[in-house]
């Protein structure tokens, strides 16, 4: 018989404490706020699901959610294909490969608020290169006045900032494909497109899944860049979910609805990632069956 030893609990304890302070307790605070109306530290009323009902009926929130979904979708539609193309175009070996990797990774090193500031200046029509150039070419570009311009600017900024991540992931995936596949394709007379369609793309499935999930989650939580660029404007054009949430919690001090919405927000991200993950898994392996040897 094995002697019973409870010492293991002691070893797990530090992790439990760390996770409790870093994740579980803050999350519980949110849950706490979401079901109570706290008027002052002494006066609090339990309100049940009332705040949830309120935020789900909030028209402004629906608009922010739609804007957010549209933005994340646009981010994925632009960054994933460009990332793949970049990875395909990057040199595979030699000093050129190292140089390309360093250059392409540069934008990833810049902090979010700096990215926002860079583009805020870059896009100005008086002193910004981009803004002045567009203005000079006769486009009425003005990200502080035009909703479309602001939205497109935020999108381009995100593409500039994060496409390199997709490219790097794809580059790693491409380098992992054994030469024999390319040789076999050459022997089989496959066109360049067929090589991409039947070898490279299927072999990139794993890294693309990571790229899609990362870029979805990250873009779905975008806050700093539009905040620095236009503060969410003009109007509400670039007020995405997290900024709307901040306005509610910090600006108007509606902690109850803000907490309720935080939980909804969290669930949306979780659910979407779950669906995306399962869908992409299935897309790659459908119809797979084990067959006996011979």
């Amino acid at each position, binding site marked *: 018989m094995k002697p019973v030893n409870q010492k293991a609990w002691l070893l797990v304890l530090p992790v439990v404490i760390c996770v409790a302070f870093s994740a579980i307790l803050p999350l519980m605070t949110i849950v706490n706020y979401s079901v109570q109306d706290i008027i002052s530290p002494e006066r609090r009323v339990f309100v049940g699901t009332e705040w949830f009902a309120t935020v789900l009926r909030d028209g402004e929130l629906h608009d922010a959610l739609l804007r957010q979904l549209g933005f994340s979708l646009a981010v994925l539609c632009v960054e994933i294909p460009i990332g793949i193309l970049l990875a395909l175009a990057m040199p595979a070996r030699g000093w050129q490969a190292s140089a390309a990797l360093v250059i392409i990774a540069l934008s990833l090193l810049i902090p979010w608020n700096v990215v926002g500031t860079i583009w805020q200046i870059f896009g100005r029509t008086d002193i910004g290169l981009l803004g002045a150039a567009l203005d000079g070419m006769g486009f009425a570009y003005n990200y502080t006045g035009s909703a479309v311009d602001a939205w497109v600017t935020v999108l381009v900024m995100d593409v500039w900032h994060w496409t390199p991540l997709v490219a790097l992931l794809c580059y790693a995936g491409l380098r992992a494909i054994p030469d024999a596949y390319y*040789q076999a394709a*050459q*022997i089989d007379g496959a066109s360049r497109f067929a090589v991409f369609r*039947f070898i490279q793309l299927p072999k990139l499935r794993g890294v693309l899944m990571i790229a899609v999930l990362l870029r979805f989650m990250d873009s779905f939580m975008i806050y700093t860049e539009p905040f620095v660029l236009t503060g969410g404007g003009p109007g509400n054009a670039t007020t995405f979910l997290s900024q709307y949430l901040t306005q509610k919690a910090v600006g108007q001090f509606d902690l109850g609805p803000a907490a309720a919405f935080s939980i909804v927000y969290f669930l949306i991200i979780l659910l979407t990632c779950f669906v995306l993950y399962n869908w992409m898994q299935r897309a790659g*392996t*459908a*119809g*797979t069956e084990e*067959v*006996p040897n011979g």
Partner: protein
Amino acid sequence: MARIDLDLAHSYVADPQKDEDYALLPLNFTFEDGGAYALLGPSGCGKTTLLNCISGLLRPSQGTIRFDGNDVTDASPQARNIAQVFQFPVIYDTMTVGENLAFPLRNRGVSAAQVKERVGKVAEMLDLSASLDRRASGLAADAKQKISLGRGLVRQDVSAILFDEPLTVIDPHLKWQLRRKLKEIHHEFRLTLIYVTHDQTEALTFADQVVVMSRGKAVQVGSADALFERPAHTFVGHFIGSPGMNFLPGQWRDGAVEVAGRRFLPDLPPQTLSALQSAGNFKIGVRPEYLQLAPEGDPQALPVRVERAQDIGTYWLMTSKVNHGEDATIRARLGTEAAALRPGKTAWLSVFNRHTCFYINEELVP
């Protein structure tokens, strides 16, 4: 189908100086149309390099390749119309087994009806008919390799089919079946087949002509019989046969062959004798199969010290050392009479007969 003339060398370094710089030393060889060839040699001897030069995956750094007299040195594998099967299975994950087999045909714009017919035939040949509609990515390694083989065989109009150790990942029992299949295919369609392997049984059973390679050099080309009976190089003697050929150091002294301190007067053609005489030192090669026990003290026999005699099933294998302080091991395939041999005792072996070969500087004396 084509005759393939090679006159080439390949080096992976830019400016080769020494022999060691070459992956493939200068080689001049012709693969006749419709022949079944094997490239045999240990790992790293340049077999795959040569194969890739033929298929066009690799451009030789020197020389030319001709298909039916046309220079194809700069032509792509597609232009050469070559089929090649690799050592490890390469399949297209997202396609079914049938689509995999059809891929080389579809890429060349073959009509759907013809594709269907060829895929059906090849699938039947390789026992893949039942899984044609299965997705290929979930199959076991040997099933995947059969798909790779199938893609190599599906086109009928190819110049040649090249196999790069295609049966490495296949089960032994299936190996025999597939090798026989390949032979059948060769007999039926008379395609030029080139088969790379490091397994001598595979090479000798598959091919009419075996090219033995060592360190980037084709050391001998010949039928299984020639490689066995008259190895052109001591390497071939070692490499072919199980166990390989025995080599004994010999000298020419006072009009006789001296081995381990004993003098022999073998019955040899005059030109061989004069070659040995002028060389002075040489090696005597004799296959374990051609050694026989001789009566004690036989003047035509060599005394050896027995190390062990093992019953291998169909024969007895005797391992022994030459009795004169020289460090040469001799192995002999003997009959049941070897059961009487005891380790440490002396046995007498008759070494010289019509199968005995002589080597000067590792090359066969004709």
